[in-house]
């Protein structure tokens, strides 16, 4: 069972349930103290940053933190590798990347036009075949398959942020 602990507002120690006291300051801020020592020092207006044994002091003077930073440095290198997406193999992606913006724009417009034509044709077919009541629903159900078919040409490369 995991027990939820709080942190002392003065020393940074963990406070287990049933321990410590809470203090609500006049401005509404809640402060939690792990023991009477921290509470008393707080009311005496001692600064935790000047006391060796508090977490705040240790953080400021970087005590005992070198192992942590070393570990982090070792595991951080992640190179951005372009991966093939379903519907677009690696060559297609690389070709898209080197494509010039005007070429891309015209290709996009042409693809959109095709989709619209297809949808209109499909809607016209369904309307003629089934009847008006089901025309709306069948138009909607026919729309997704046609756009997913067109996905390979529509892959926008380079917009994913790493």
């Amino acid at each position, binding site marked *: 069972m995991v027990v939820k602990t709080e942190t002392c507002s003065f020393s940074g120690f963990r406070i287990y*349930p049933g*321990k410590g*006291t*809470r*203090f*609500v300051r*006049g401005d*509404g801020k809640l402060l939690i103290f792990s023991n009477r020592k921290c509470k008393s020092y707080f009311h005496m207006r001692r600064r935790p940053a000047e006391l060796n044994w508090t977490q705040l002091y240790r953080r400021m003077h970087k005590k005992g933190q070198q192992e942590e930073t070393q570990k982090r440095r070792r595991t951080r290198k992640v190179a951005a590798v372009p991966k093939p997406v379903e519907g677009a193999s690696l060559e297609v992606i690389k070709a898209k990347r080197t494509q010039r913006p005007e070429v891309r724009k015209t290709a996009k417009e042409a693809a959109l036009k095709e989709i619209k034509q297809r949808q209109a044709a499909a809607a016209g077919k369904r309307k003629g075949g089934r009847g008006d009541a089901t025309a709306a629903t069948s138009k909607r159900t026919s729309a997704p398959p046609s756009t997913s078919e067109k996905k390979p040409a529509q892959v926008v490369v380079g917009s994913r942020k790493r």
Partner: protein
Amino acid sequence: MIQIRTVLKVLDNSGPKTARCIGILGPPKKFATVGDKIVVTAEGKVYHGIVACCKVEKKRPDGSFVRIDQNGVILVDSSGKPVGNRVFGVLSSRVKQPEILSLGRVKTM
């Protein structure tokens, strides 16, 4: 632990800023704590009040103690209806009277 002659801070917008306790209602006792009804005077008038926060707090069921930095009271009339219509500051979470908790955004701790 509020007793007679304790000066409390008025936590609502009824007018007076401080009120002095002149009596404790209910069964006879020396001290009032959060949630108890007391008799107070404020600016020459007598009101009832509900103690809203107290510097000395009793232990709560989960074992914690919460100390609030002021002794506060919310003024009510003799029927229990609050005199003001807004509450300021932080109240103790032991205040459970619905007439007070419904006075807009009430913050309890």
